[in-house]
């Protein structure tokens, strides 16, 4: 156990001591944030307004502040969703770098069991992702409560943290299988560049997926990260929406809230249908499970030369 803890601690230190790489792992989240300040916020509010424009009465009842709280949460979800992709990946590049620098030789010369090496990479990446996204989520919640307009109950918050944990584990499991195919850190670095550029779009951090064609939506919904983001959206944005809904006093029969959910993509879209949120959870867990099996199959042969 000491050996496993030692390996895990070493991987965590290697990641967190390299400040540049820590910042780099949040690059997509930072881009989402900057773009939000520049114009994304405006487009989100426009999308919101387009629903409001359908009814003069809605405009008078729905408060500006509530809309503001709603779109701010959209930002937080986008940042979290992309961090849940880029942080575990970046942390896992240690696997490739260790091979390149023959650090794995050094470990192989010790009595550490081979499965412990693989598991420690997995655990340390999942942990650093939980830590980083956990901090991001906590900071986001604190800031939004300071701004007023905080409509989350304990269950919402607990669900958000749960999704962050599950998201960290499932992305790590998925990327772990990838890592074996990279021979050089240059290759994994190039892939990381691609990943951080694409991830914001795929999870709908810039433009809600509802804006796209069915084909694109189905494609994006193949990635577990998209489902993670949708779950986060349900956890963090429902509160503000329900508050607006209740201010309507049920006079529209929930049509307004439903159309907002529709246009900001609160449901997973697979096999040509909008599905309930629990199917996202099942999908993510299933992919994580399959990844773990692949990981065991691939790595069991890998550390004996």
């Amino acid at each position, binding site marked *: 156990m*000491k*050996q496993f*803890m*030692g*390996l895990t*601690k*070493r991987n965590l*230190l*290697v990641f967190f*001591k*390299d400040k540049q790489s820590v910042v780099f792992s949040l690059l997509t989240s930072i881009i989402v944030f900057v773009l939000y300040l520049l114009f994304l916020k405006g487009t989100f509010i426009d999308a919101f307004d387009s629903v409001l424009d359908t009814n003069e009465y809605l405009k008078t009842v729905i408060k500006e502040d509530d809309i503001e709280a709603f779109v701010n949460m959209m930002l937080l979800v986008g940042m979290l969703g992309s961090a849940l992709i880029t942080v575990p990946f970046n942390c896992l590049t240690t696997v490739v770098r260790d091979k390149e*620098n*023959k*650090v794995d*030789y*050094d*470990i*192989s*010369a*010790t*009595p*550490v069991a081979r499965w412990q090496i693989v598991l420690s990479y997995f655990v340390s990446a999942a942990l650093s992702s939980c830590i980083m996204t956990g901090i991001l989520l906590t900071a986001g919640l604190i800031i939004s409560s300071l701004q007023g307009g905080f409509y989350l109950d304990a269950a919402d918050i607990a669900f958000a943290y749960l999704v962050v944990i599950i998201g960290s584990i499932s992305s790590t499991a998925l990327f772990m299988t990838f890592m074996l195919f990279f021979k050089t850190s240059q290759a994994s670095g190039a892939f990381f560049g691609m990943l951080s550029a694409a991830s914001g779009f795929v999870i709908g951090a810039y433009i809600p997926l509802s804006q796209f064609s069915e084909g694109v939506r189905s494609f994006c919904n193949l990635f577990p990260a998209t489902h993670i983001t949708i779950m986060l959206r349900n956890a963090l944005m429902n509160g503000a929406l329900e508050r607006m809904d209740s201010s309507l006093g049920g006079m529209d029969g929930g049509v307004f809230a439903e159309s907002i959910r529709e246009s900001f993509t609160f449901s997973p879209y697979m096999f040509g249908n909008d599905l309930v949120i629990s199917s996202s959870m099942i999908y993510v867990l299933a992919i994580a499970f399959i990844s773990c099996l692949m990981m065991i199959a691939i790595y069991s042969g890998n550390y*004996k*030369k």
Partner: protein
Amino acid sequence: MDAINVRELSKSYKDVKAVKGISFDVHEGEFFAFLGENGAGKSTTINILSTILSKTSGDVKVFGHELGKDDNEIRALTGIVFQNSVLDDKLSVRENLYTRGSYYGFGKKETDRRLSGIRESFELDEIWNRRYEKLSGGQRRRVDIARALIHSPKILFLDEPTTGLDPKSRRIVWDHIDHLRKEKKLTIFLTTHYMEETAEADNVVIMDKGMVIANGSPSELKNRYSSSKLVWYTHRSQDAEALLGNMPHTYESDHYNISFKDSITEFLYANRNVITDYEVIKGSMDDVFLNLTGREMSV
């Protein structure tokens, strides 16, 4: 007791035969040197001996433990300093050594206890909290060696420990290795490109293209594969030629070069009145390599 016995050891990578059936023994407490050029198979061999790579065929015993069966016993007995550093740049010396200690199941206290002597003699205290990346080449090497000694092994493998170091750092690293050899009675297994580093070895194995081409103490090897040279400063003359007879010799500007295998003392004594201005140049390990392979050693 023998520290290491290697019999007919071979290793093939996918399409490269790196080691081709080598055999040799290392005695306990010995300073053993592996000499060879780039790609000779030195690193491959010591990586096999320290259980990192699996062998293709052959038998290896480390203190009687069979490689491939008792690997964990062998790991406890062997420490290795790699050709390229394997410690983490961003971590301090302390963090590097404690995490490596934990790979052997040691807590901080145990690692401290095992390193206490080394920390002092290797002067690690002053760099203890410094990041590994900030260290000089010589300091890094010292930490690398400390890393290899964390679990108090009986054999220390050193894979080209001084390559890339400036002469002063090389000297310092060598002083530390000498200390370990003499004070701690550690068996030292060195691989090197440098002829002069093998001069003090008890035993030298010369490897070329995956094969052992010579094996013996430095003086044995020199006697067998090189010749000493007598430089006699004199005019070229019939008398001189007659004196040298059938000893192989050449004349250059102002001196004769005479090479000989056996002792020159008697010859010099017998002719002490004629040969007055001379030098004796002993055979070197460079000659040994040249004679064995027909080429100069390239570094």
